[in-house]
């Protein structure tokens, strides 16, 4: 698994995740998101289009990150779910708890 992060000129914090997020790699994702969100930023946008596998351990990291953003008055949006990852979101009900949008633009912009 690999995470690339950046904060763009609109102060949107982007994290592009690729590879497989399981119980082993979930802590790396957690660490990368913590490092990113420690910096001043507005919205947090997660690009999961490169994620081929996401287990419940990964779901929990996403859930906690979203909760932390919300607690700080911010918001986390996720985009680019592959079919199997989308299925896990739907099965677990996390698609209703987390904000899932269709495109990078929707994740970064708007209200």
């Amino acid at each position, binding site marked *: 698994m690999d995470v690339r992060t950046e904060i763009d000129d609109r102060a949107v914090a982007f994290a592009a995740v690729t590879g497989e997020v*399981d119980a082993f790699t979930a802590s790396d994702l957690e660490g990368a998101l913590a490092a990113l969100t420690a910096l001043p930023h507005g919205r947090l946008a997660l690009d999961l289009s490169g994620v081929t596998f996401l287990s419940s351990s990964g779901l929990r990291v996403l859930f906690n990150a979203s909760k932390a953003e919300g607690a700080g008055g911010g918001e986390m949006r996720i985009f680019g779910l592959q079919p199997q990852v989308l299925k*896990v979101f739907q099965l677990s009900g996390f698609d209703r708890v987390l904000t899932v949008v269709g495109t990078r633009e929707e994740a970064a912009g708007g209200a």
Partner: protein
Amino acid sequence: MRHPAPKLPLRAELDLPTDPAVLHLARAFVRDVASLGGLPEASAEDLVQASDEACTNVLEHAFEPGEEGRFTLRAEVNAAAVVVSVLDRGIPFESPANLPSPAPGRRGLGLYLIGGLVDRLVWIRHGKEGKELRMEKRHPDLRVTDRLTAEELAPFPQASGSPPPQEYEVRRLRPEDCLPVARALYRTYGYTYPTEDLYFPERVARMNASGQLLSAVAITGGGEVVGHYALELTKSSRVGECGQAVVIPSHRGAGLLNRMRAFLEAEAGALGLLGLFGQPVTSHTLSQQMNESFAAKVCGVTLGLVPRTFSFKAIRPLLPQRETCMLYFKALQPFPERSAHAPARHLQMLSDSYAHLGLEARFGEPEPPSGESRASVRLNPSWGFGTIRVERAGASTAGEIRKARRELCEHAKAEVVYLELPLAQPGCPALCDAAEEDGFFFAGLGPAFLGTGDALRLQYLNCDLDTSQVQVHHPFGKELLAYVEGERKRVGAG
């Protein structure tokens, strides 16, 4: 390039250290086995995901922190499904470290996902040999409605009178019979038959090839398939379930059901089965009368066995509530001599049930359960029920039953849980008392349902159920239903 088809059943095993870094290896193993088994990619990925969650549960919960252990990933490819088991010899089930944490629990979420990803889920306590989580993913076969046109599936015209005298052949089902069987079923019942498997022609063929199902068909002289009746087999007991009966309207009255039943009884006898059971519905009494005509006797009430709907919601109309079935049994050969350790409260009802079945039982004294425990827990996701089967009543069994019931109802969302306790064991009455405190109540007698002998069947409702419209044919069946309802009130289960 595609893998060549392996010789079935294929078994493979992977022995792994409890190091999270091996999860990737476990997934690669399952992905390859699923591909060898011919599962399409989406089904294979469901099994990979479920296996990863099961392995993660072992890594996080089966061993003390810092303890280095090993666990096994076992796969079986058979004609009907790909089955993956995760086995470990870590800390026991009932250890506080292994209890589900409050929602959204870590273990709870994993187990919940597994339940939604596979077709069958079983967790087994093997005593000293550790525990096993077994996940089955079936081939996503097409329904008959995907294979044939609405015209080909039009309802049969109303039959008038008996069929003209003619020769029929009754024989084992062949793969080419499956589509005609599914078509005949659909044209007879639409999408309302309670056993969904028959609507999937390839699935019936696969289940017959793997030995899970033994189907008989009735064929006219002209080669038309006009009837089907099947025997469902399990590896864990010496009884088979009879059902999936259909005779098309224009060939009723020719005694075909009786001939297929006789054929199946002969096949079952040749397999060494002790008896056959059936679970006829209670929205009418015809199927119960059919069981009685085969000399099967009523011995239980299975509340809410049939779900309101199958996954195929668009076509099958909703039942107002889960449907209750009666339990009928017929012995095929003399039972071995054995004793039954009945709870004092149910002694009279069990004694009457044995007498009604024409079976003899010597009632023995109860003793507290001791020693090792052997039990399995099954989840049938599409039917929405779970079954806890106790083969050996050990010191930890009562706690395991409570935990399994909670996992089935709270995490796996089972609407009904059935519990089978080993009457052959002196620890049975104490387990029954403990289960009744947890809300289980009497369901009936399951002769030879367990590897260790007869089962005392209990049930737990995780849904509303009104039995006032239930239709029961036999007077003893009515007595059983009244007893079950009385027990339901006594334990305070609604």
